[in-house]
């Protein structure tokens, strides 16, 4: 995964040699495709659990798929805006409605998952997660969001600039609790991959908010590599999760 991520960044760094490829394929086409794959992968798990509809995991997978599907719609809308309508920077746009909406079912899904194992929760686990989330929030607010406040942006854009990284951190906090619960077991792998994906997403969204406010973002920007890596991590997380769920419980 590390080598893969490095190669993605190398591809982006040398984008001057193949700008069309980066713009049309990497930044606007591959993300919808990967997020679409993640939806399909998660659907297999749902299909398995749905047969025994009493399973709490049927509901969880339904929430996770709904969230992923909304993110897929967000990616697809962005691609349609840029590649078909020729809008250079569709932000804010309908795509944001899907992306922001996606956080809700994803949060409910992961929260419900963690709550099934709530009897294993300790105060130390909750404290660890809260401390990491609080430190990350402070870093993001101080280094990225406060400077944005001083620049002239319309209210909707400003709200979105704040919403993305903060919602990422909120989702990350529940994933951090999850990884503490499943540490030591095979289930830790998909949770670890999701934590890595969300951490990468925090960086991507914070950098996106900063660069769009600054006016330096363009489709194909190096920060798109973070989104790309985040989606791939997420996709692998869902494949591993599906494997563990189908094979183990």
């Amino acid at each position: 995964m590390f080598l893969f991520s490095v190669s993605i960044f190398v591809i982006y760094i040398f984008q001057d040699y193949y700008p069309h490829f980066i713009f049309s394929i990497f930044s606007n086409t591959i993300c919808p495709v990967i997020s679409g794959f993640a939806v399909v992968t998660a659907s297999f798990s749902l299909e398995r659990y749905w047969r025994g509809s009493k399973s709490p995991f049927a509901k969880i997978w339904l929430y996770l798929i709904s969230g992923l599907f909304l993110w897929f719609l967000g990616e697809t809308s962005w691609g349609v805006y840029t590649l078909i309508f020729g809008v250079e920077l569709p932000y804010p746009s309908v795509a944001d409605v899907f992306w922001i909406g996606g956080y809700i079912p994803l949060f409910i899904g992961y929260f419900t998952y963690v709550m099934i194992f709530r009897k294993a929760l300790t105060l130390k686990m909750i404290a660890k997660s809260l401390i990491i989330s609080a430190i990350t929030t402070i870093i993001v607010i101080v280094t990225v969001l406060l400077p944005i406040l001083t620049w002239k942006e319309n209210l909707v854009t400003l709200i979105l600039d704040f919403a993305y990284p903060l919602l990422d951190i909120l989702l990350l906090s529940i994933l951090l609790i999850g990884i503490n619960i499943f540490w030591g077991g095979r289930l830790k792998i998909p949770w670890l991959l999701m934590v890595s994906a969300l951490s990468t997403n925090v960086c991507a969204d914070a950098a996106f908010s900063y660069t769009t406010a600054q006016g330096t973002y363009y489709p194909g920007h190096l920060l798109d590599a973070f989104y790309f890596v985040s989606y791939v991590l997420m996709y692998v997380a869902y494949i591993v999760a599906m494997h563990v769920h189908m094979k183990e419980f």
Partner: protein
Amino acid sequence: MKAFKKVLIEAIDAGLFMLGEYGRDLIYSRLKDSYGLIKDDIPDHIEIFIKFIKEIFGHGAVAIEKEIISHLSKKLEIKPNEKKSYSLIEYLNEARKIFDEKFKS
């Protein structure tokens, strides 16, 4: 002793139900595949069962253990010491003693 074993099997069954019917059945099936342990033999090899659920859920296995303890204590009407945090094995050792004493009297 047979009665205790029967109650324990029922409690394990009820405890694993937190994973849903499909999840519970898959656990039994994998336990059989990995360790050759069938549902009715779990009480005699409880440490293998705990090792198995820890391999999958890590620390989360504690939640399953606690769920089993909760069902077992209801069935046996033996309240665990509230001040003490039991592992399943610790609880079983204590519950077995109390169950034997009850049975004798």
